[in-house]
């Protein structure tokens, strides 16, 4: 059941039903694999069976002789076009098709273009590749050993697998706090490698018109405009001749941000054959080669007084970036926003160091609704608070309440420099405690412990940092993270809004129409929202990091207000009064003191397109554009409490209840917000208990299908219990903060904390995710399982 505990400042139109659903429930969505073009051919990728191997030779002659094959592309083909390597979003390079070595299992080696998808797959079997296997670096903790094989010997002068060292915070001050602290507790923990696994895999249809020079790429990308510019930079194609068309997207979660080798190969395939080429990966390809998430080996230290006042945090991270550093994040932030790891607490000092290393695994790392690694940061701090509670024998909820930032501290600058815009943290935690009935549950737990039954309560409090971001500090490969928006009101008062962001299921068609509706008083049903087509929409960096509402939502409100101000001038001319003598009520301007004298937005729109004499310097029509450069990130927050029962005989964890109080500012469409929270909570249950991409010593991927990479089903998920508080962002035009990733960020720690709370009678302080029955059983036995490697 959903409990709406505190309905505050609801916006107009509220929980209206989604405009998208009419086509989706009829099976009439248009996803990437639904795109059919005349004469279209099909591509398939040959992938490496080895994690690390030298390519001695590739023989494509048998594949080329296949009657249905139109082209076979290898790294050598691409090298001739200067396309064998492409730049990554983190200033590294990535092989499009391997020329020298393969560096992870599943890496792209060759590309076949054939008349149908079955023939393309058949032809892959006809390609013979001679490999010389090399020792692989699988354990990130061995990557910097002096005898570790160097993975990136393509990079001149590189003699190790080291990518970067990065730090944040005040080291000296933090060391001093720790030196003088009454209590210091340290804990190693792994946030394992997981995968966003949207149910629709990644794909593209490339159509290169040799006559016009136009390159049209249908692609289920979360960032169409960034893709267009990157193709221009990578391939040297003129940007005005590139059109990216994102169709309906079957889930993204960060998996569909980057440019994958298959997309580039589809473009090359279209150039070579003169036909459109479709490439859609299968599930194993998706899990093995496209952007994974996390893989952070963390050592946290927390300093406190004996009575539980937290003083400082110190963190060292070893980050496994795989074979190519292609994390998708603002370029100046090599560890994403991990340095918001002080979380929701009032600390004196904090410091973190992050070192990135190459391993023989797939590239990626920033994905799966992680808000640029706020996920890892929240998990770290929320586990550390529970570890401290364990050592102090304190109640984890009370310990949090004691240390949470207080409302009067906002805007608050944390020890690593983030300026939190607004918050009332104790109120959210108290609401969650009240909703779950914390005291009663603790009593139940005590009674059960006496009977040998295992029950646990896990608390997590998170502060998110979303809406990247201010262009002064945040860019991706030099592209500032501001978003454009264009709004045009037609003569009959209907409107079209053009956005740079791209929905993957978030419901933009509905919520962005609602923003305009609220500002202009036009029904949301009368507003068309256009997104995904770079020829039709203004520039902007796309939808990820929960940035659509904070950035494009800001742009939408601002552009609607610009239109409203134009409408004021037109209405003034219509009513023959000065514009400043008009009052606005939703959908209508009227003369101050004479409410009967007014014009609706539809009447104004028609007049703006008609013969009406407008004041000097005022153009006709009713439209506007804007580029919204957010002044700061927004900081949604929330308090989550998970209740689990653990079977001491099998180690099986059952999530009995989950209470989630979210504060994302005013909710444009509460129904959609709640739906997004539900989905993120399921992600958290999945990561905490089930999901894992493990590898064996040779680098074989042990989670390469949904038979091995386990996702939560309806059986593992409880009925979510939601609550809300509303603390508007002071700098966002409508006060909204974004919510898409909050639950994924906040929930894993709640589930893990609950399981470890249940295991307290066994003296287990920590165990790594995923807490499978085997992992819980081993923890009970005092022999914790290393979850990420099949090496015991």
């Amino acid at each position: 059941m959903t409990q709406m505990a505190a309905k505050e400042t609801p916006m107009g139109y509220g929980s209206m039903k989604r405009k998208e659903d009419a086509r989706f429930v009829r099976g009439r969505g248009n996803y990437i694999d639904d795109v059919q073009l005349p004469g279209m051919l099909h591509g398939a990728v040959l992938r490496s069976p080895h994690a690390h191997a030298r390519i001695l030779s590739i023989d494509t002659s048998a594949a080329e002789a296949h009657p249905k094959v139109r082209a076979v592309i290898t790294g050598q083909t691409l090298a001739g076009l200067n396309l064998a390597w492409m730049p990554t979003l983190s200033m590294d390079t990535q092989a499009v098709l391997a020329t020298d070595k393969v560096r992870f299992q599943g890496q792209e080696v060759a590309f076949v273009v054939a008349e149908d998808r079955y023939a393309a797959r058949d032809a892959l079997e006809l390609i013979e590749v001679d490999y010389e296997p090399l020792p692989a670096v699988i354990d990130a903790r061995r990557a910097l050993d002096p005898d570790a094989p160097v993975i990136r010997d393509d990079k001149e002068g590189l003699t190790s697998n080291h990518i970067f060292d990065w730090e944040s915070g005040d080291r000296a001050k933090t060391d001093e706090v720790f030196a003088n602290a009454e209590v210091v507790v340290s804990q190693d923990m792994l946030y394992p490698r997981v995968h966003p696994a949207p149910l629709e895999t990644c794909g593209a249809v490339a159509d290169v018109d040799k006559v016009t020079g136009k390159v049209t790429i249908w692609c289920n990308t979360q960032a169409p405009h960034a893709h267009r510019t990157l193709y221009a930079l990578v391939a040297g194609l003129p940007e005005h001749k590139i059109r990216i068309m994102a169709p309906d997207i079957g889930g993204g979660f960060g998996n569909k941000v980057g440019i994958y080798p298959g997309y580039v190969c589809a473009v090359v395939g279209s150039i070579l054959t003169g036909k459109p080429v479709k490439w859609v990966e299968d599930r194993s390809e998706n899990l093995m080669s496209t952007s994974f998430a996390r893989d952070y080996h963390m050592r946290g230290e927390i300093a406190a007084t004996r009575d539980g006042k937290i003083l400082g945090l110190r963190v060292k991270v070893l980050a496994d970036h795989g074979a190519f550093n292609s994390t998708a994040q603002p370029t100046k932030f090599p560890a994403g926003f991990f340095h918001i790891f002080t979380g929701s607490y009032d600390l004196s000092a904090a410091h973190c160091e992050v070192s990135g290393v190459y391993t023989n695994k797939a590239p990626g790392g920033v994905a799966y609704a992680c808000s640029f690694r706020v996920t890892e940061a929240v998990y770290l701090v929320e586990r550390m608070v529970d570890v401290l509670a364990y050592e102090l024998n304190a109640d984890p909820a009370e310990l949090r309440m004691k240390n949470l930032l207080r409302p009067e501290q906002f805007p608050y600058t944390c020890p690593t420099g983030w300026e939190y815009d607004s918050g009332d943290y104790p109120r959210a935690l108290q609401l969650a405690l009240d909703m779950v009935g914390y005291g009663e549950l603790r009593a139940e737990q005590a009674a059960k412990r006496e009977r040998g039954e295992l029950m646990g309560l896990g608390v997590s409090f998170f502060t998110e940092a979303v809406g990247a971001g201010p262009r002064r500090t945040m860019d991706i490969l030099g592209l500032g993270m501001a978003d454009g928006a264009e709004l045009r009101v037609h003569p009959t008062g209907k409107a079209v809004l053009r956005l740079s962001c791209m929905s993957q299921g978030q419901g933009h068609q509905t919520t962005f129409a609602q923003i305009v509706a609220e500002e202009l008083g036009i029904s949301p049903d009368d507003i068309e929202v256009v997104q995904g087509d770079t020829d039709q929409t203004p520039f902007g960096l796309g939808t990820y990091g929960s940035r659509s509402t904070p950035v494009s939502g800001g742009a939408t409100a601002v552009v609607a207000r610009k239109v409203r101000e134009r409408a004021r001038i037109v209405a003034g001319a219509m009513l023959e009064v000065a514009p400043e003598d008009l009052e606005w009520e939703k959908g209508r301007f009227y003369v101050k003191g004479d409410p009967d004298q007014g014009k609706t937005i539809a009447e104004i729109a028609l007049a703006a397109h008609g013969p009406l004499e407008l004041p000097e310097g005022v153009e006709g029509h009713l439209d506007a554009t804007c580029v919204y450069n957010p002044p700061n990130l927004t900081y949604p927050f929330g308090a989550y409490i998970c209740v689990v029962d653990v079977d001491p005989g099998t180690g099986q964890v059952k999530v009995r209840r989950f209470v989630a109080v979210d504060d994302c500012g005013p909710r444009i469409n509460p129904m959609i917000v709640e739906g997004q929270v539900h989905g993120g909570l399921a992600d958290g249950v999945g990561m905490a208990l089930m999901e894992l991409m493990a590898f064996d010593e040779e680098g074989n991927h042990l989670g390469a299908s949904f038979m091995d990479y386990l996702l939560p089903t309806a059986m593992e998920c409880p009925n979510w219990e939601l609550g809300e508080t509303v603390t508007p962002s002071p700098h966002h035009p409508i006060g909204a903060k974004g919510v898409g990733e909050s639950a994924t960020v906040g929930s894993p720690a709640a589930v893990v904390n609950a399981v470890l709370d249940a295991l307290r009678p066994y003296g287990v302080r920590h165990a790594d995710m995923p807490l499978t029955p085997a992992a819980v059983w081993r923890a009970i036995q005092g022999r914790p399982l290393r979850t990420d490697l099949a090496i015991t």
Partner: protein
Amino acid sequence: MQITVTVNGQEYTREVEPRLLLVHFLRDHLGLTGTHWGCDTSNCGVCVVHLDGVPVKSCTVLAVMADGRAVATVEGLEKDGELDPVQQGFTECHGLQCGFCTPGMMMTARALLDANPSPTEPEIREAISGQLCRCTGYQNIVRAIQYAAEHETTSTEVPA
């Protein structure tokens, strides 16, 4: 080989390879792209259709196995311009976000309600437990199916 399959009441005769999967027959040969493909291993369920009234994962059924049989897909749910109660439920209860799992979920829900018009919540959860959704956390899907059960208007036949 030649097969004849009745899909949503319409008969189709096509020449197909023996290895062709039913999901590709529906999507690529008949243009019925409402049925999706998601995993290859019959874990995700976005490809669920009815074969003679029984829900099957069409990524693990060969098209030739459907020869002479009746297939129902999401495109056939709407009757005479009237959405099926299941479709209404998913719309009313926000049972979908990206929409990719939705056709398979709705076909399973339809089969469940055909066999059991008043399922309990555990029965609903078990019925969809062979299917994945990455967006909704399942709660609103369960509500959508409950809504459909409460709004069934036509008498339904238990499949043979």
